[in-house]
């Protein structure tokens, strides 16, 4: 699965994108997996209320299923316009 990071999430984790092999069933499961990996992930995902997630390029929720999903992205609330 492609995992993308944007803005300060990308900066904290230190990369914009990575390929992850996972059997996580939901976004939240994947977050727990990442948090357990390394300090920089734990830091980036420490406050989920400050994060948004997109599943296959649609804004989604942390309890969304990852079945059949090819791309997931984590980022702070958007500030366009």
């Amino acid at each position, binding site marked *: 699965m492609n995992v993308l990071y944007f803005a*300060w999430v*990308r900066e904290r984790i230190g990369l914009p994108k990575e390929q992850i092999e996972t059997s996580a069933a939901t976004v939240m499961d994947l977050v727990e997996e990442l948090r357990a990996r390394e300090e920089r992930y734990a830091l980036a995902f420490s406050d989920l209320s400050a994060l948004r997630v997109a599943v296959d390029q649609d804004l989604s929720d942390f309890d969304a299923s990852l079945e059949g999903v090819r791309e997931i992205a984590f980022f702070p609330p*958007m500030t366009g*316009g």
Partner: protein
Amino acid sequence: MKILVQEAAFDAGAELNDFTKAQSSMGAVVSFTGIVRDLDAGLKQMDIEHYPGMTERALEKIASDAMGRWNLGDVLVIHRFGALKPEDVIMMVATASKHRKVAFEAADFLMDFLKSRAPFWKKEQTGAAQDWVSSKQEDENALTRWE
């Protein structure tokens, strides 16, 4: 519907004129232009990051939602990414309708959703400091107006 996501600068006035000229049965055109505001501390640069692919999807959904909700002649959305300087134009939207209220409302709607539902992130550089622009609760709250 014309939706552009681009790094290059664009001429908002020329875009407004093109958009306006394409209308014949719509009497009202409303535009919004967003400009990089200078800061008290002195803004050196504003970097706009975006999510290629999702950005276009999100903008198309927002524009389609507006077209579905109101009787509009057309909708225009242009948003830049990359490195911008103070006073640069960041983005614009335009709406055309028979009625001024509808054109205003639809442009207002586009801006509300573009602000918190299109994947753009702004970072401001002032001298040594760099800060991601925080989202505002009022921008999130603004969306409830359209429910």
